[in-house]
């Protein structure tokens, strides 16, 4: 790995349990962080459902993603953004999420893409 690290933007769009992408995205983000590669996370579309509190997955026999997501700050992943429109469209209150996130408006969302040359799309 080169010395000068390129910061990554991980764009998440999938809900937590119907597929495996949400978990695989989290694994990739944690790996980047473990290697001290700066990584920002952006929740868009149904990925914002990953952040809902009170997820209880015993009934579907799947590991609970909401248990692991709060580990992000421990991994020094500090820039966690969420598309405000995606929250509003789904009637989700940004204050009640399992993780402290920064809701962004469309302009900021666009500049996030422009400011990263390394994008991981999930």
């Amino acid at each position, binding site marked *: *790995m*080169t010395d000068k*690290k*390129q910061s*990554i933007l991980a764009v998440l769009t999938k809900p937590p349990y119907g597929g*495996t*992408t949400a978990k*695989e995205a989290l*694994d*990739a983000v944690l*790996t*980047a962080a473990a*290697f001290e*590669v700066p990584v920002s996370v952006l929740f868009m579309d149904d990925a914002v459902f990953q952040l809902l509190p009170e997820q209880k997955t015993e009934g579907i026999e799947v590991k609970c993603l909401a248990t692991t997501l709060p580990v992000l700050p421990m991994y020094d992943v500090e820039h966690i953004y969420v598309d405000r429109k995606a929250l509003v469209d789904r009637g989700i209150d940004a204050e009640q999420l399992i993780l402290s996130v920064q809701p962004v408006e469309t302009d900021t969302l666009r500049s996030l893409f422009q400011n990263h040359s*390394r*994008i*991981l*799309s999930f």
Partner: protein
Amino acid sequence: MSPTPISFSILVYGAPYSSQSVSTAYRFTKTAIEKGHRIHRVFFYGDAVQIGSRLVAVPQDEVDLQLKWQQLGEQYQLDMVICIAAALKRGIINSDEAKRFEKDASNLAEGFTLSGLGQMIDATQSSDRIVTFGY
């Protein structure tokens, strides 16, 4: 237009024969090479790891995607990595891992390597462009 050669890493997420992902990625990779670019790595993640099973049998009148990747990989010495965590869960395993997990067989096809997500993160750092082919 003949741009200066650059390096690509290709990320593939869709299962072969379930989505177009693996074959669109193949065409892109081959074209990039033919245009003089360098492929740093091809990384198969999610259901795309199924490309690495030696046990896949394809009807003669359909495209053998694994064979195509193997041929391209051999011709251009491609680093074709299959995510180990995603692979093990889906029954793609090499002989070392078969021993570690006490399985009685292994099935990783020639030309592919099982390795960790670190290879994906390295790809973001060591190539000029990342192109993702989702499912």
